[in-house]
């Protein structure tokens, strides 16, 4: 790693040191407000209190897709501009995205349980999220399989972009497969039909979770930069002959 390559990550590190505390504080405040609003929200006339699960399910589901978008942008950065921070951003985002996707699945299944009578129904929406989850796990496995981070970054970038192109196709296929077998999904999450009483807590929570992602992502990127420094220092140490 040359000094020039280190320049950008170094500036990034000093930036995170300044920004992270503020971001964390903003996230905490917004989360608290969001939680309060969702606690105060009235029951839905159809779903009763279970509508409260929506306030955490929808932000997680939205982040599950958003994080893949962030990774796709980073993948472009890796492949087109070969920016060292892009690799770091893509790698740091993957486990966080996988966690949000997992939460979207779990909360979706808990939300569906009262309606379906089972924890899992091969509902079009949830099934798509499940496939997204599998793709996240595959991507993380790819990152783990290759020790050299720059080589892993190229491979992961290609896979991320292929995934981004494929996700709409998968979504469409799953929807088609699902309607073939059963009537439309029980869950309703149409934004426009949503009452204002639900919309405000939902939006607050969505912004709060997005901020949470930005905070976590920044912190994880910082860790990854440090990890790479440790690695290159260790390589340098290995190169030195014993005295």
């Amino acid at each position, binding site marked *: 790693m040359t000094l020039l390559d280190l320049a950008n990550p170094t500036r990034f590190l000093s930036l995170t040191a300044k920004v992270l505390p503020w971001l964390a504080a903003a996230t905490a405040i917004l989360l608290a407000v969001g939680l309060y609003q969702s606690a105060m929200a009235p029951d839905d006339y159809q779903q009763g209190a279970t509508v409260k699960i929506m306030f955490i399910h929808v932000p997680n589901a939205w982040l599950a897709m958003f994080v893949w978008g962030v990774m796709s942008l980073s993948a472009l950065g890796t492949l087109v501009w070969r920016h060292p921070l892009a690799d770091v951003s893509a790698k740091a985002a993957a486990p966080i995205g996988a966690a949000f996707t997992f939460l979207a699945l779990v909360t979706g299944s808990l939300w569906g349980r009262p309606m379906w009578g089972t924890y899992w129904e091969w509902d079009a929406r949830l099934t798509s999220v499940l*496939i997204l989850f*599998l793709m996240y796990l595959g991507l993380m496995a790819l990152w783990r399989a290759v020790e050299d981070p720059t080589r892993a970054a190229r491979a992961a970038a290609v896979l991320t972009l292929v995934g981004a192109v494929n996700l709409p196709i998968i979504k469409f296929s799953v929807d088609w497969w699902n309607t073939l*077998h059963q009537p439309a999904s029980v869950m309703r999450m149409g934004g426009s039909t949503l009452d204002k009483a639900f919309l405000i807590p939902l939006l607050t929570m969505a912004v709060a979770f997005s901020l949470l992602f930005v905070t976590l992502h920044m912190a994880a990127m910082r860790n990854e930069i440090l990890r790479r420094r440790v690695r290159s220092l260790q390589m340098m140490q290995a190169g030195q002959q014993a005295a």
Partner: protein
Amino acid sequence: MTALAALIRRDLRVALRVGGGALIGVLFFLTVVVLMPFALGPDLALLKRLGPAILWLGALLASLLTLDRLFTADHDDGSLDLIVMSRAPLELACAAKAVAHWLAAGVPLIVATPVLGLLLNLDGQATLAVALTLLAGTPALTFTGMIGAALAVTLHRGGLLLAVLVLPLSIPVLIFGVAASNAAIAGPDGFGAPFSILCALSLAGLVIGPVAAAASLRHGLD
């Protein structure tokens, strides 16, 4: 004994470190099981009926595919020569490697079974039954698979050839594994007999697998 413990510890460490593929087997298992409903349709009653069979097929393929590198990795870096030359009997060294592989790749499959059971609409008791049969049966899969893995070293190729060689050998395990799971789900009768045969298969594999693998390695090295 310390030699074998050291071998098990090393293989576990390598499997769990970066570059090791212990958890990829679970991911493969998950993916195979998730694929099934897309072929069969999302009919929960059907999935519930086929659940044990799907889980067993997934576990069979997952444990087989992860076995591919059991000996070839050691052969490629030269470790296998030293293992063959060592004072520890090669049969026991093979058994130790199989145990390490089962711990790193087989046990995670069993742990993942409840989650997959949920996706296939299996109830708690059925999931428990499948997990129990997998616990009793996956060692047999590892021990028969290791014969193929040893042959892969001899033949300088693995992958599909390994699968073709080993899959027929694992048919008995599949039969009694699925039979025991279905017996536990459908009724109280008949779980004991297939389950004990499954255990017997694992015990027989424990004896036959290492001996056959060691014989294959001894004669196949060059």
